[in-house]
């Protein structure tokens, strides 16, 4: 019981730790900063500039990629059309002899009728 009564109250302990860190913080001597000095400012500028350059390069890349895609899409459309026409002609070519046969038969029939 006696021991407990001598124990440091919580708020005291909290205050001690707070003061300890406050003392440590009070002893910190750091020069303001590097950021303001030309070297680091240049670094900061360079970093910002570099980010912008990366953005520009990325956007340009996207634009070029989109143009290439459009070009290929257009080429494929043309190719498909050409292929369609080619096969259509091929089919037509196949049917010509058949049509000629019909014409010949018709001519023969006409001749017979004349005779």
């Amino acid at each position, binding site marked *: 019981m006696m021991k407990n009564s001598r124990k440091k109250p919580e708020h005291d302990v909290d205050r001690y730790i707070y003061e300890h860190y406050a003392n440590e913080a009070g002893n910190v001597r750091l020069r*303001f900063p590097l950021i303001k000095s030309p070297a680091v400012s240049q670094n900061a500028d360079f970093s910002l500039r570099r980010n912008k350059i990366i953005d520009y390069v990325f956007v340009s890349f996207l634009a070029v990629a989109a143009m290439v895609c459009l070009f290929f899409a257009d080429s494929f459309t043309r190719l498909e059309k050409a292929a369609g026409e080619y096969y259509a002609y091929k089919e037509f070519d196949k049917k010509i002899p058949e049509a000629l046969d019909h014409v010949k038969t018709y001519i023969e029939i006409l001749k017979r009728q004349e005779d």
Partner: protein
Amino acid sequence: MDDIVRQLTIFLNSSLSRECRDRVFESVWNEYHKKIHVFTGAMTGVRREEIDDMTQDIMLKVYHSLHRYNPVYSFSTWIYTIARNHCLDRLRKKTAPVENMEIINNREHAQPVILTENPAEQVISRETEHVIQEFLNSLDSTDKQISFLRFFEKLSYRRISRIIGIPEGTIKYRVYTIRSDLSARLEQYDEK
């Protein structure tokens, strides 16, 4: 503190000009550089010169990341998370020999600022300060971070939990343990 968040909000909504960034950073520097220094020291326990360098690096990181800050969240949580991650990176990269207790205690700058007027009280304060310093130095890195964030920064358990990545309940328990251990240590000192 609110002023920093207000300035940052303006900065984030503006054209992100350099002058604006510098102005905001100046406020951040004035408010936080000493705290970050102590926090870094508590977390890493390395030599003072190294802590100075690390603090500069952290503040530089903060400067470069200002545009990424989300005002929805607390600024202190954000900045201490950056500091903590930087320290962890540094500790991972460099297995720097951790300063032994004697060197820490004999830091040339570590002269405690005595807050009392009475010389007798000053002696008590000095000795109490010594006991507290010894006790805090004996804590592990996580407990040091917790004690700093809780007792000095007076952050809520939730924020500390977010910064350190430990459940809130564990933080509460650790704070309780730190309090009672230091209390017992001071009691022992009183008995002597």
